[in-house]
């Protein structure tokens, strides 16, 4: 089942719905413009209602863009119906045919393509083998567990050898453990087939652990596109920083950048430095410094950039999460190797410092 990888390109794609009751316009997707490279797995990440599903459905042909163009493998497919494009979707609710058994579900697309019966049989068994369901071929989908149903849906999509695989929160109906297993499974299959895949999720861990690149969306806008480490370490907005991981924000006046590239800022009258900055942050304006828990450390009271009182400690084995109530809100500090250190007790006053090389200046929202 080796497949030929193709790129997917969206050119200024917008989708506006009209609310059937109030007749108000809903801008589900606005000016989405990006390219997904051949063989890449890209996730669409964002809070509920930000337009992820709509974007995916436009690529699959289930919705018509209000504006813009969609290209798959260089061909304009904007107006092609779903059955006219080489995409295959794994639906959130799976969409298995309840009146067909597992084998016939997987064979459906091949029968539509009128392949010879023998080839259909072979390919179905191979696809079922790929997802580890060979034994259950004659079950009806109603009598499968959630994870098994999910794998049938995956096999059914893969067996037609689509150019692009679309997955809409395929794991949201599964329990945590199964979710992790299936995540690995999907990634393995996608890589081994070299298929271009677009994966929708609102779970940042899923997005981080699965994808080559992540597209973060909010209110229909694309906020940032980048590799998982890029959007975690170098977000360019407060929203992305907050959405992809735990983070503390300090409002500052961004004054200038020195010759080494450090950003000179003022935080409540104190001078502080930050290792890098987002593009939108301009010297001479108000800005925000973001610090991840692992770039923060606890100090004795009176030292560092902020003061606070320890409110909760959560022991996680290799590390400990310490929540400190400060005038900037509750800040999470990650302390590694907790066994080797004395850590302030709950209720104790502490200071907070950060690793200047790791923190980042972001423009104000």
């Amino acid at each position, binding site marked *: 089942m080796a497949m030929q990888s193709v790129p997917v390109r969206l050119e200024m794609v917008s989708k506006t719905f009209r609310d059937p009751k109030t007749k108000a316009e809903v801008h589900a997707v606005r000016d989405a413009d990006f390219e997904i490279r051949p063989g890449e797995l890209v996730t669409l990440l964002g809070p509920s209602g930000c337009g992820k599903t709509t974007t995916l459905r436009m690529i699959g042909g289930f919705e018509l863009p209000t504006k813009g163009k969609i290209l798959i493998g260089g061909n304009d497919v904007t107006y092609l119906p779903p059955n006219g494009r080489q995409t295959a979707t794994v639906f959130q609710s*799976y969409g298995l045919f309840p*009146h067909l058994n597992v084998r016939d579900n997987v064979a459906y697309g091949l029968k*539509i393509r009128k392949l010879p019966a023998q080839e259909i049989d072979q390919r179905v068994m191979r696809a079922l083998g790929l997802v580890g369901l060979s034994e259950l071929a004659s079950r009806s989908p109603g009598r499968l567990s959630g994870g098994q149903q999910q794998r049938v849906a995956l096999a*059914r999509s893969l067996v037609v050898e689509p150019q692009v695989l679309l997955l809409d929160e395929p794991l949201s109906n599964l329990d945590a453990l199964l979710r992790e297993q299936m995540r690995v499974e999907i990634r393995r299959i996608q890589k081994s087939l070299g298929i271009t895949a677009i994966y929708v999720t609102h779970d940042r861990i899923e997005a981080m652990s699965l994808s080559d690149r992540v597209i973060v969306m909010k209110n229909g806008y694309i906020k940032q596109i980048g590799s998982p480490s890029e959007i975690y370490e170098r977000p360019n907005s407060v929203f992305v920083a907050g959405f992809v991981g735990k983070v503390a924000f300090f409002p500052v006046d961004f004054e200038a950048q020195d010759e080494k590239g450090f950003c000179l800022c003022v935080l409540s009258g104190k001078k502080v430095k930050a290792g890098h900055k987002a593009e939108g942050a301009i010297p001479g304006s108000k800005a925000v410094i973001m610090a991840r828990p692992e770039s923060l450390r606890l100090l004795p009271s009176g030292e560092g950039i902020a003061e606070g009182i320890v409110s909760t400690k959560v022991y996680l084995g290799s590390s400990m999460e310490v929540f400190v109530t400060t005038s900037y809100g509750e800040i999470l500090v990650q302390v590694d190797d907790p066994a080797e250190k004395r850590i302030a007790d709950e209720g104790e006053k502490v200071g907070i410092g950060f690793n200047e090389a790791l923190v980042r200046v972001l423009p104000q929202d």
Partner: protein
Amino acid sequence: MLFVMACLIFLAADLWMFSTVRNSFDKTMVQNIKTLAVAIAHSAPEDPGDIEGWVSGLADTYKGYSFYYMLGLPWEDGFREAGGDEELKKYWSEKQDAPDMLEALDSVSYLESYILKDKPRIGGLARNVVLAPVPNEAGDTAVGFVIIASDASRTSSFARLLNALMLIAFAIFSLGFGVATFSRDPITGYAILVLFAIVVAFVAFPLFEAVRLTLMREGKFSLSVWKAILGNTQYLKALWGSVQLGMHTATFSTFIGFVFAFAVARTSMKGKKIVTALATMPVISPPFSLTLSIILLFGNNGLITKRLLNLQNFTIYGLGGLTAVQTISMFPIAFLTLQGVLHAIDSTLEDASMDLNASRWQTFARVTLPLALPGIFSSWLLVFTNSLADFANPLLLSGSYRVLSVESYIEVTGMNRLANGAALSILLLLPTLTAFFVQRSWVSKKSFVVVTGKPSTRLSDLANPATRRIIEGFVVLTSIFIVALYGTIVAGCFVKNWGFDYTFTLANFSEALTRGKAALLSTITLAGIATPIAGILAMVAAVLVVRKNFPGKRILEGLIMTPFAIPGTLVGISYILAFNKPPLLLVGTGAILVINYVIRELPVGLEGGVATLRQIDPSIEEAAADLGADQATIFRTVILPLIRPAFISSMSYTFVRSMTAVSAIIFLISARWYHITIQIYNFSENIRFGLASVLSTTLIFIVLLVFGLMRILIRQSEHLEKTVSTR
């Protein structure tokens, strides 16, 4: 761009084709006139004295033509006008120096007929005018000529028809081609077009014709029909009669229905299944059957009234008998509605009330009844509208009591006053529409039932033992009465002459089945044709309504649902009005019956399909599209199997309701395409109760058979329903 080009090319081809047809038609027509002219000219008499008699004789022989004869040619000596049609004479005197006429005279002098280029209006009609020479004996010179004028309006109406056809062909082409090129989903586009065409032609158009007829008098707008109807006490009496009957029936039906529903939903009575099955029998039983058995029991020569009690002044015909029959046939509607209502009321509420030390009676009066009240009211309205639309029962049983549905039937078939009939059946729509809007605006707002959510399956016995026994007694007696009614029909089959001679016989069977065979066969055939058509159309319409968005969707849905609300008599009358003339000359064919069945049963099928489809996760169909299936394939391989229960039940309802139809089809049947129910009616009217019983029993059997079959088929696909929705 491509679209515009293709349309232009088609338009050019279209124009060329039709103008060719028109030209060749014109040519043959001119040829015909010329041939006629030659023949006439040759028959001219020698003797100038006979000329006048000959000309007037011609006008009698050739109707539609007029003639004017002249001796010699205008520039010759001795030229004179011999006479003929006065209007042609006038025309000749006006036009004799016109260039076209001079040319014509020229031709005539060379012994050639000539057809004038323009088509003058003579005597108010467009005419083709020919000048034909009358040759001398030797045949070398013209001794005179005839002006022949023939009616050109027929040919010009043919030309107009050709033009219309040409436009229609172009419209169909561009519409179809447009759908195919501009839509991502041409099959859906075609389905929408076809459904629209069907409902416009067979719902909107006939109703429009019916309304139009009541508003026209000799081609002009006039309210005279309505003035006549509303000023006539007879008709107003019939309106009041319908309303009165409706109120009686609705009240009794709702009461009995409520008692039954209460017994089933709120007591621990035994044999609930049997009671439910029995109570639903009258809904599906053929028309006339209950009326027939009431007449057998309580009629003038009835078993009970005459034989057992020997009553003299009692008559079942009239309001009382009608109320009784309608109540028995319609209380199941109330029962089914109210059973649903009571089931939807969470019985924890009643438990809570009794827990707070309310007695059972107090609980019933203060909790159950108020909660059920909107449901009770809407079931009353439902029965009321059904009673108004009822035609079969009053037809046999109204006696001197007048109701609108029968009155409009008599106007149409007895008096041949179609406009009055149409107006009366439209009048019938008034109370129905009122009830509908009351239901919409008031009852649905008052409804609390939906709020309480999940129905509770646990049963609380809301009647104390004494009350329960009374309720049970009532239910059992009513059930026995229903069984007895059906028993009477069966008994009627075996009796020689009901009312007079109760000896056992089997003769009824052979006679009824021989005389009813043709009707039975034609009914089964036509219902059988209508069934799959209605089933498929209903499911296609359901898919469009639930899954697709397109302009005019609400209108389409509304038009499909319309026949559900309008009384059958109105449908029947509007069909004879709309389809007794071209372009859709259907009256007298079997097609009109099939169309009628399909149109009238589409609403029920659509509702069922919509309800089922709403339960199905749309991503199942999207998955199929994604895997390469087009709309038609999705419909065939995914949707139909999934909505199979709705599909099957919609088909069986169509079949049964078509087999048992009366009100609309009584206007539409013909000697060739008769209907079994009308045959039953005829037998009953002629007091051949034995024969009517046999046919009724046969019909009941067929109905039961079809429903049994439906049950089995649906049960086979029951396992699906549980897994259809994964969401």
